[in-house]
């Protein structure tokens, strides 16, 4: 912390915003300059985020690069930023994917170019802000702020059913988050009544004593909001529509980062704030996660549309993340965080590839393709690698994550582990079947014969994706060593707090029965 006096997090948050505001004043005729400028901003942002990795002290548990300023002292609202090992990696993922998104939109976006990049940079500000905020109000502001640019990305530059998809996305997420806002207030007044201080500071609220009966309600409100974002079964229905209709870069950022906000929210807020309720919710969440894994995989198999298929596979993959997280052991949790990154890279990669196919053929239907490896050998190689990463072949990043998650799940509950493993098999089925139908066999359609293979820009994009797939698969240590201490500290804290609640109020299960009997106050 001391080594770094520069307000790096604020800079990271506001550089894209500054870029977006600057773009507002550029004349729309200069399309190439606008693209170039957005690329430069996103590269600067990426470059700025790299020192975070090196200056991050992996030996301390606490928050690092902390910035704190009074904002509304009478109400206890502070401008409070900081990151730990978990958010560090997600920030790096965000800045990396944003560069790819700007690059992949180079040709795909032809209308309203200026507005597109403004929206995108604005979105980046909101995403990084969400990951850095340690004040609940600040977090909520950034959290809600993510909605508008994503809504516009889907609605303006999306596919034919974009209006429906955009509104569905917005309403689902908003309905969840307003309830979270109320839970935040309840927490806030609860803390005030107990201690006499008004604060929205998460680190202080972690230590609040919340009666277990109340925790269930608060956890439910937070969990609903985050579960919609993840998305967990059964509130996942907005995702296939949003993914299918969004432009390529929108899908990449949606899958890569926005969904992670849900899982990150569980880790940063829902679980440590309400540890007893989180422990009591293990069976429910794990079962929903398993349903998501298996249901997502089965539905994926039947999808005729490539993007929809990948969207449902996201439901399945995020199910793993939730399963690992609620195993509440080191393997499961680390695997879960690693899987968040993996999913960002490999599903992001898949969306990029589908986007590239779509730019050439203007269709995403699997039936329209077939035998593409003949005209497009380079694409075939990249597609294969990314597909393998998505089905978790050893040597790719996916393997490390899923392996750890399943290990954790087995340790926590044998049955959950077994059921979770079936998802791996199903995953291989839908991915390989899809790959076979698209890439192998005879070229049946005339249009497909003349397809041009990847250009330099596209190879560059996919090379960087493959680089991370291999790096994360072969040498995961460089990522784990940054999060080890944080995850350990997190687990220790949650276990201790849960033990404290159990000691003070008896076993959670008993309390559940009590609350069912008496209505909530």
């Amino acid at each position: 912390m001391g080594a770094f006096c520069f307000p790096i997090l604020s800079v990271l948050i506001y550089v894209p915003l500054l870029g977006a505001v600057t773009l507002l004043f550029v004349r729309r005729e200069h399309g190439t300059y606008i693209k170039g400028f957005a690329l430069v901003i996103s590269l600067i942002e990426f470059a700025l985020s790299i020192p975070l990795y090196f200056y991050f002290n992996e030996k301390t548990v606490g928050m690092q690069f902390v910035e704190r300023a009074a904002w509304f002292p009478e109400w206890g609202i502070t401008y409070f930023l900081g990151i730990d090992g978990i958010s560090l990696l997600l920030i790096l993922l965000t800045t990396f994917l944003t560069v790819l998104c700007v690059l992949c939109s180079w040709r795909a976006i032809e209308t309203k170019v200026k507005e597109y990049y403004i929206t995108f940079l604005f979105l980046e500000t909101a995403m990084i802000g969400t990951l850095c905020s340690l004040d609940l109000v600040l977090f909520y502001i950034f959290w809600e702020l993510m909605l508008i640019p994503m809504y516009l990305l889907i609605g303006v530059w999306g596919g034919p059913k974009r209006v429906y998809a955009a509104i569905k996305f917005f309403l689902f997420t908003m309905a969840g988050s307003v309830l979270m806002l109320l839970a935040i207030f309840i927490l806030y007044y609860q803390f005030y009544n107990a201690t006499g201080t008004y604060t929205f500071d998460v680190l202080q609220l972690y230590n609040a004593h919340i009666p277990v009966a109340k925790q269930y309600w608060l956890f439910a409100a937070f969990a609903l909001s985050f579960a919609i974002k993840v998305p967990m079964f059964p509130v996942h229905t907005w995702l296939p529509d949003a993914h299918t209709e969004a432009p390529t870069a929108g899908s990449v950022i949606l899958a890569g980062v926005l969904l992670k906000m849900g899982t990150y929210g569980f880790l940063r807020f829902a679980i440590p704030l309400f540890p007893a309720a989180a422990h009591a919710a293990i069976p429910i969440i794990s079962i929903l996660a398993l349903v998501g894994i298996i249901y997502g995989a089965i539905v994926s198999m039947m999808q005729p549309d490539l993007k929809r298929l990948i969207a449902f596979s996201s439901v399945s993959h995020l199910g793993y993340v939730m399963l690992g997280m609620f195993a509440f052991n080191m393997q499961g949790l680390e695997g879960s965080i690693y899987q968040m990154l993996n999913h960002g890279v490999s599903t992001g990669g898949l969306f990029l590839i589908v986007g590239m196919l779509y730019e050439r053929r203007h269709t995403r239907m699997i039936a329209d393709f077939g035998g593409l490896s003949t005209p497009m050998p380079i694409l075939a190689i990249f597609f294969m690698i990314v597909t393998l990463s998505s089905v978790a072949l050893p040597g790719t990043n996916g393997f490390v994550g899923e392996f750890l998650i399943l290990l954790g799940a087995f340790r926590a509950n044998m049955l959950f582990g077994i059921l979770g493993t079936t998802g791996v098999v199903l995953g291989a089925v839908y991915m390989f079947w899809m790959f076979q139908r698209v890439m192998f066999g005879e070229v049946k359609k005339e249009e497909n014969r003349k397809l041009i293979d990847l250009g330099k820009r596209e190879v560059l994009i996919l090379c960087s994706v493959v680089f991370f797939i291999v790096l994360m698969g072969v040498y995961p240590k460089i990522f784990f060593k940054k999060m080890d201490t944080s995850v350990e500290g997190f687990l220790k804290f949650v276990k201790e707090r849960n033990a404290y609640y159990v000691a003070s109020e008896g076993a959670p299960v008993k309390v559940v029965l009590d609350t069912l009997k008496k209505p909530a106050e």
Partner: protein
Amino acid sequence: MDFTQLTSNFRWIIPETVITGCALLVLMVEAFRRSKGASLASGIICLAGSLVALYYARCLWNNNVTTFYGLYVIDNFGTFFKFVFLIILILISIVSMRYAAREEIGFGEYYALLLLGVLGMMVMVSSNSFITIFIGLEVMSLAIYILCGLLSGNLKSAEASLKYFLLGAFATAFLLYGIALTYASSGTVDVKELAWLIKEQCFDFTYVFFCGMALLIVGFGFKIAAVPFHMWTPDVYEGAPTSITAYMATGVKAAAFGAFLRVFYTGFFPFIEDWSAILWFIAVLTMIVGNIIALVQNNIKRLLAYSSIAHAGYILVAFVTGDKVLLSSILFYLMVYAFMNIGAFTIVMLLGRKGEPNEEIESYAGLAGRHPFIALSMSIFLLSLTGIPPLAGFMGKFYIFSAAIKARYYWLAVIGVLNSAVAAYYYLRVLMYMYFKEPERELGAIDLSPAYVIVILISIAALLYMGILPRDVLLLAQKSVSIF
């Protein structure tokens, strides 16, 4: 009568005096000349008058005085509302210089009535006496009945005026009857005295007294457009000239809430259990009915009318709680609401032309492509109405619902926030037309006159300021409600 005392009383009502003086002056201008130049001059007098009045209102801050033999009070609560009314008047008079000229209604009486309306509002919130409150309410209402019908030859405008007048007169009768019954049972027309009498249990709380209280709720409920007293709102808002709609939606609502707050948080506060139970239902109904009907509106003015009903519901949520500190959220919200609503109505005015109002949402299709500035401004106003951070609308809702949670009205808060999620749908629908749809017909050249642009920019700046740094205004509001 002690003459020196009377003159010393007058220095407490300088803002009101300035406004009245300007109204008379405007009428004089009118008497000599009826031309475009005279209309502009009236507008400038109106604007200058409101700025001067704002300056003098600023000097009243932190003064607690009862003058005119107890009929008039100067306190921070009233002064805060005076700020709100004068800001509204400033914005409306700027906009009117263009809009009223276009609609050919901007003659002297237009500005004179605007000024008199604000005079009524100011009187209404600055008294503990039912009589003065009633006089203020009538001055305000009479001005607005006329203003609604100014679009001569326009049937909708005539209908609006007549409807508002008939129903308004009826509601005023309810209010007056409520005052009479309260007086009959307690023997006082002063709310402070009433509170004292109740505390000392100096009279029997008979049915007459409670009937009086209920009738007062009806009377105020009509003015704030709470369900089930909201029927007039959509028709009147649609038919009235748009500048007047903006003026009504913000000013009348704020004034009615001001008087409502003062009466119920002083006089009837001991009976909070009783009236808050009634208002709980009214708040829920107002939010739900307003939002649900707004979902299917195709006329932007009607949409904003139903949205204004729904917003009255949100404000009532804080009203119900009875938390005397967080009552400030109502004041803050009314201030914020003034800016976002006037901003949105300014865009509606800007897109219309004489005889061609362009009020259908379809006519907003493709606005973003052609006029990005207008579309962006409209989005900011609508998103603020939705309650998206970092705009002030979010902070307003934030404080209102925190008040509900603090007072443990959990269900009311849940219903409220879910309603604001429903509301997101219809605000986004306008956004959707502006950004996602292609226009069906050419909208033609747009009159981007400086009058509109200034108001839009002021409103956006205010919304961002109160959204990102709400502290100053909120502390001001908190100080204002410390009188209760």
